[in-house]
């Protein structure tokens, strides 16, 4: 192998090592960066998994922060904004109630919002927040109702 080859290999090894180090050190939450964007990014892998890898967008309905905790309620739709056909989806969301609504509790650690737990609304009560708020976040964070639940009528998930 000639010198140029060794140089190229060395360069890529350095790049790979740098990427690995960067991956192990979470970047600080940049000043001014919206919490909303950060928490949605952090809960997205959970939603991607729920949807079996199908493309989606998450529209936050409620994002609340108290101290270093955040509670998010977001609706997942197709990228064009249309509703997901839940019957086509794998695993537990097949029995979810449309629109697919996911609640998540997150905590800020080392400058990064980390997912503690996420739950989706299912047809049967209890609602996801009872599960999440068992984790005892600070008073004042919730539980909160996602506004669209008000249209669900008397069989809406219990709060």
């Amino acid at each position, binding site marked *: 192998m000639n010198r140029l080859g060794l140089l190229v290999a060395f360069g890529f090894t350095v790049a790979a090592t740098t*990427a690995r180090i960067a991956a192990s050190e979470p970047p600080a939450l940049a000043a001014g960066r919206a919490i909303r964007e950060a928490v949605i990014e952090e809960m997205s892998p959970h939603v991607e998994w729920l949807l079996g890898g199908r493309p989606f967008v998450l529209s936050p309905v409620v994002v609340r922060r108290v101290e270093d905790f955040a509670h998010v309620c977001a609706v997942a739709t197709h990228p064009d904004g249309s509703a997901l056909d839940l019957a086509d989806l794998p695993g537990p969301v097949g029995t979810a109630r449309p629109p697919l609504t996911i609640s998540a509790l997150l905590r800020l650690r080392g400058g990064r919002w980390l997912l503690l737990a996420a739950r989706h609304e299912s047809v049967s009560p209890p609602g996801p927040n009872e599960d999440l708020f068992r984790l005892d976040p600070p008073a004042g964070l919730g539980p909160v109702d996602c506004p669209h639940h008000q249209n669900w009528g008397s069989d809406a998930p219990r709060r």
Partner: protein
Amino acid sequence: MTTPPPRPTPGRLRGTLAAFLIAWIAATATARGSETLRDLPPGDPERRRLLELLRPVMEREMRGPVEFRVKLARTLRGWGLVRVEPQRPGGSRIALGETVFAETSSSMDGLTTDALFRLRDDRWHLVTHVVGPTDAASSNWLFGDVPMRLWNPDFVEVEAPN
């Protein structure tokens, strides 16, 4: 007067190309998650990273500081799986009654915890976790492209015929 640099010979070009290819494979494997199953040994930075993502929720659920006895830590194709036994720092046992599961302990099988992770843009994320499952978590978590081999390394993946 300087001597012009030697022209690359076909042999040298092949060597350069091979080095480039090896380096490219190493770089992309790092960025996308390894294509081969990796059992993460103690001290492995990736193992530490996954455990640190699990710690905040476990501290809430166990109502106090925890350390992990790791039974399994693996990654494959951008997915990560760990199975841990949480305990108090120093190794003392955590009683179910001390945890947020005190009222539901009858439907649980100890505090062994499974957690699933996803690598996205060079960062690992906690996807889901379960404490004390009575069934194998794999039966509830295997959809999309979550690889069965994370749970069973001997599982042979067969591509569906077209």
